[in-house]
């Protein structure tokens, strides 16, 4: 077994597009790294930006939020709000010294199983490059 650093990525997927896209990747038997674990929510607009901070704090080395392409939101507008929130959150995270590769967002539709595979590959690679997240990781600080 290699002792190479394997990042831990937490992903928030909307039920209608991205989660379905991820299911399609499975149905099509595409293969991708196992570093990413999914939390299903109904809409990317449901993802509270503090989830991302919390995930980093709790041990994630990378976080992904994925929703429907703009205009395709099952709830019409959720991903537009998400886009604003996470654009700002990303700026804030980088500003305090979180590496740019750690937080990502993607639009993956229900038909884009192949894109999902690429996205997983990409965010895993970026998190790997950034290394273990230490800045404000909660675990065992001051224990």
């Amino acid at each position, binding site marked *: 077994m290699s002792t190479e650093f394997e990042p*831990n990525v*937490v992903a928030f997927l909307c*039920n209608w597009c991205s*989660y*379905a896209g*991820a*299911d399609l*990747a*499975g*149905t099509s*038997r*595409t*293969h*991708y790294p*196992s570093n990413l*674990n*999914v*939390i*299903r*929510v*109904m*809409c990317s*607009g*449901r*993802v*509270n*930006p503090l*989830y991302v901070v*919390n*995930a980093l*704090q*709790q*041990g*994630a080395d990378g976080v992904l939020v994925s929703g429907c392409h703009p*205009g*395709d939101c*099952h*709830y*019409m*507008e*959720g991903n537009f*709000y*998400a886009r604003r*929130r996470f654009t700002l959150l990303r700026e804030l995270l980088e500003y305090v010294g979180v590496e740019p590769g750690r937080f990502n967002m993607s639009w993956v539709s229900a038909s884009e199983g192949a894109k999902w*595979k690429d996205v997983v590959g990409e965010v895993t690679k970026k998190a790997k490059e950034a290394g273990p997240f230490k800045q404000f990781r909660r*675990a065992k600080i001051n224990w």
Partner: protein
Amino acid sequence: MNNKPKIGVYVCHCGVNIARTVDVEAVREFASRLPNVKVVRNYAYMCSDPGQLLIRDDVEKEGLNRIVVASCSPRMHENTFRKTLAAAGLNPYYLEMANIREQCSWVHEDREEATAKAKKLVYAAVAKARLLEPLYEKEVEVEPASLVIGGGIAGIQAALDIANAGFKVYLVEKTPSVGGRMSQLDKTFPTLDCSACILTPKMVDVANHPNIELLAYSQVEDISGYVGNFDVKVRKKARYVDVDKCTGCGICAEECRLKGRIPSEFDMGMGKRSAIYLPFPQAVPAKYTIDPERCLYLTRGKCGKSPKCADACTAGAINFEQQDEIVEFKVGTVIVATGFDTFDPTRKPEYGYADYDNVLTGLELERLVSASGPTGGNIVLGEGENAFVPKDIAFIKCVGSRDKSVGNEYCSRVCCMYTAKLAHLVEEKIPGANVRIYYMDVRAFGKGFEEFYDRVRREGIRYIRGNPSEIFKRGDKLVIKVEDTLAATPLEDEVDMVVLAVGLEPRKDAREIIDILRLSQSADRFYLEAHPKLAPVDTATDGVFLAGCAQGPKDIPDTVAQAKGAASSALVLLSSGKVKIQAQISFINENTCRGCGYCVEICPYGAIELVTISRMGNPVQVGRVNEALCKGCGACAAACFSGSAQQKSFMDRQILPQIAVLGVMR
């Protein structure tokens, strides 16, 4: 009541689909050590009857009260297992699924990695399952009636379908008569059948149908409520004619002092009418209306010694005292079929529509070629001594469509074909006419369209590829400045008549319905459907459907098809009589809500409103969710600073433990 979580975890092999890559026994063993987990089992096919029976037995024997199924995607079998829970006497929302097939065993090859991930996913599901709460799907009754807004062909068709199924329909039409745009057309492409001949019977059916209440010359003022229970307020504008007495004989119009002096809307201003009028001969209802903005008596309070119409009306139907009337009723569903406006070509001043009499729009030409039109079907320009029959005729396509400069990026879908149709009719009516069509592209995509386009070209109509830059007058002629882009030559084409194939636009007053029904607009400003592919007649508001050009430009068959679709969607609700309300909806903790209204702004369904409550005697404003309107997207929850807005089954306190597990577990 002991509701301490007792969780049963069921790990599915899915034959070998999961078991080949995931060590299900290891996952089972791992899960058995997790907090609150009482029972863990492996089974070949959890979704099979024996699989489901396992759960039911354990619930009964072990007293389980939360179930985690680690199997395929919840998008696949969540409903299956919810039913299993219900059958076992558990609330169906005590279920959480771990997707270890689509998002684990099928996408990972390494058995160790896949097993590790499956454990994590199971743990995350257990962590959430501990905190699940029971949810209840509420049902509301559906009022067995429907409102159709707009009396064009879309509204007529939808109304007839619903009425024929046995439900009451209120058909509201803004103008004095149903019929809409289709009634103004002469022939329809590509079959060239007479528009009026196929439309009029339907109009009459609407008027006579026992289930249809036609509210012509009326406007929707307000709609409140939610799916199944909309409260509608309609303003019936005063016609100043008692419709019960009016026989439609028309003597009043003959007698009117303003006879022949008011441009007829129906004839696009080219024909003339009286102040009391029937918009067109086949109008339904065949009742006269007094134009309150023109009638001398209504505008000046005086019409000679006495209004001639009233004097002439033997039925005594004229009533200048008539007032607008508000009609209120309840419906279960609403169909919006408000149609379109044609593009106003004065917004393209280079085409000289405002400057030159002989520049017409397609719809104006339509009236000219119509036998019921102002010229009796003869294409004659000018009046009196100057009247002439044009010989050189040019059409310009895509006027106001596919044109970012006027804000319309979309294709209007009908202009290519109506241009071909009109060109054909011109050729037919003016022997020897020299007709050419300036175009960017020809889109003849429908049934019989390409054949018709081909026929028209064979009839000698010239298609010249080029987008004219200017039209100006030279002597008696109109000159079109254009570059033939296929020949790469600049042209100055002298013609007698230019027909602008204007595109379709949303109604100028489209906003009104948006505000009333909380609809959205797509980028093209037409009403937005719930899903462009899979819910093309639905809207974001449950129970509200779209038909016809209100949703986007389309031709008559598409309009009718969509109207039938909207009607059948409405009928699903009407005939079942009940509608289920989502269970996984949002709620707001009124104790902690600060009333900032972010959720109200964000909710795409207008499901949240601010209400004033008393907090220890102090009036405070808080958000409140209308459960019938909420669709459970959770956008409010993400926007809420105080965490007061939450989505059931996706509450912060349920998601944070999932994050913790996925983060902490390596």
